[in-house]
């Protein structure tokens, strides 16, 4: 069976990729197995040291979805203001967009452009 996917100017061989994946997996495992052997799960050892303060509850310290990519979204604030203004959730706007795009496409096809 031929695994190679030929494209107009190249090829893609998933088997070759798998071989590399396995190879890097083995290398990764070797590095992992040479780690500190004194590490023990579920002991005092794994608790965070917070200068003697009690560990806050997991709910309080977890990173929430809303915090992820905060900087990225802040940086693109102006873009998102426009996008959010477009997404009104109002059905009448949905139909207006349809009519607007319909008018543009008809203008292009009927000979306006």
């Amino acid at each position, binding site marked *: 069976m031929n695994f190679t996917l030929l*494209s107009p100017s190249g090829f*893609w061989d998933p088997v070759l990729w798998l071989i590399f994946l396995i190879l890097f997996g083995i290398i990764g495992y070797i590095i992992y197995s040479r780690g500190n052997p004194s590490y023990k799960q579920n002991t005092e050892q794994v608790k965070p040291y917070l200068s003697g303060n009690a560990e806050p509850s*997991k*709910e309080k310290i977890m990173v929430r*979805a809303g915090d992820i990519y905060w900087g990225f979204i802040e940086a693109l604030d102006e873009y998102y203001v426009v996008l959010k203004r477009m997404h009104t*959730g109002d059905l009448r706007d949905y*139909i207006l967009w*349809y009519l607007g795009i319909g008018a543009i*496409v008809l203008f292009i*096809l009927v000979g306006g452009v």
Partner: protein
Amino acid sequence: MMEHLPALMIAVPLFGAFTTPLFKKRQNMAAIWALVITAATLGLSLLLLQEVLNKGIIVYVFGANKPTLVLPSGYRVPVRIIFEIDAIGAFMALSATLMSFIGALYSYSHVEMETGLEKYYALLLLLEVGILGMVLTGDLFNLFVFLEIAGIAGSALVGFRNYRGEASEAGVKYLIVSAVASLMVLFSIGLLYGQYGNLNMAYLSKQIHFDTVDMIALGLLFVSFAMKCGSVPMHYWVPDAYTEVPAGINPTLLVATYASLYALFRVSFSLFGAITWNMARVGWIMSILGVLTMFIGVTMALVQKDVKRLMSYHAISQTGYMLLGVGVGLTVLNDPAKLSAFGRAAMAGGIFHIINHIIYKSLLLMTAGALFYVTGTRNLNEMGGLARKMPYTTIAFIVGAAAISGIPPFNGFASKFLIYETSYQLNPLLAIIAMVTSVLTLASFVKVFASAFLGPPLEKYENVREVPKPMVVAMIILAILCILFGLFPNVVLNKLIYPAVDALIKLAQYQSWGGLV
């Protein structure tokens, strides 16, 4: 039986839809009955695909032996309802039946606590009938009728959880958007009927001469199907509908969306395929809508906190890849050198992406449904540490997320690889936007993975367990398909995709049956 396969493809699920309400008092029997019917239809679609690949286009006439039957008055054009099934139609039918089966399997546990399940499964089968009719028919009016069936069944399913205000609102929105699009489709069909006195697509494609009225019909069909397939900036109904519909219906609703994309391709390539001076314009419109769709979809997904809404925006974004791939092919359709150099491969990428996306997006929406099933919320801010509690769902999510982000060796990579390379040859900017979109897609799914599955286990989810077996099995089947389609892209392309692409490109083949006048 084989000669009546096209009729059975409609008759079997239709029979199932009308008999399911008989199980009103034994709702789990309704689920099993729907599973049996969808499995039987899946078997039929496999047989149909085999027939089409072996024997070429199948033309099936309801109520007559031959498609060339003429009226006694000598009116020599095909009359009666005609199904014309080529490789792309059979490919879409296989996608629809596979996803209906997977959806029914997942629904068995996912909605077992709901009431009115006999209606749920009857509507699921009706939705399947609508999709199958749309992709198998050779008649424009028939296409409209099945579009309506799919739209009405789909909107009822979107609003199925009518105890939630949001679901009812989404259902009504979907219904009205579908009705407006269908109305405009009907209006364009009326224009073409007024022009040529017939509604058979093969016949029309030979007769059409592209005057102003024809171009208005093309424009209206194009925009209506573009809205139904969720193209930006007419995509607003998609997040509403996909978020509120039960996760077991998501796969079939996805295929219903892509049945409209199929209709858009069918109109562009088969009905108006002989148009020459304008086809590059239509292709460019499709490609530009494609890149807009993918970029706006993914950037909107990045800021979502509702896991299903986030994935719904990704569904919009991925539709952009399909529009781009096929749009590139359409742009160079009438340039044989460019068509063979990269146009055919671009279309293959676009069409391959349809099935790939149906598989991995269904998988991802099912994992979102699984998260909702165990946590009772779709808000990512309230989730965390679920990987240890839901190992199978986690694995399924990782496979789906890697596939949608185009990470090798999963299926999304193979189709995106073709789309990047071929769109680059038309215009490098198109390929750059497509690649940036993939990076943002990965970023978005890293966010979902980190917030829902990683992190310390939360006390409120201490007692949650993995979802029931039917849901796990449905997700694992799709995860395996993601891997297999990624490992053997060549097999899928040669057996399924390139015949579908050729069916669209070779207009003469579509027109040539039955001695048309």
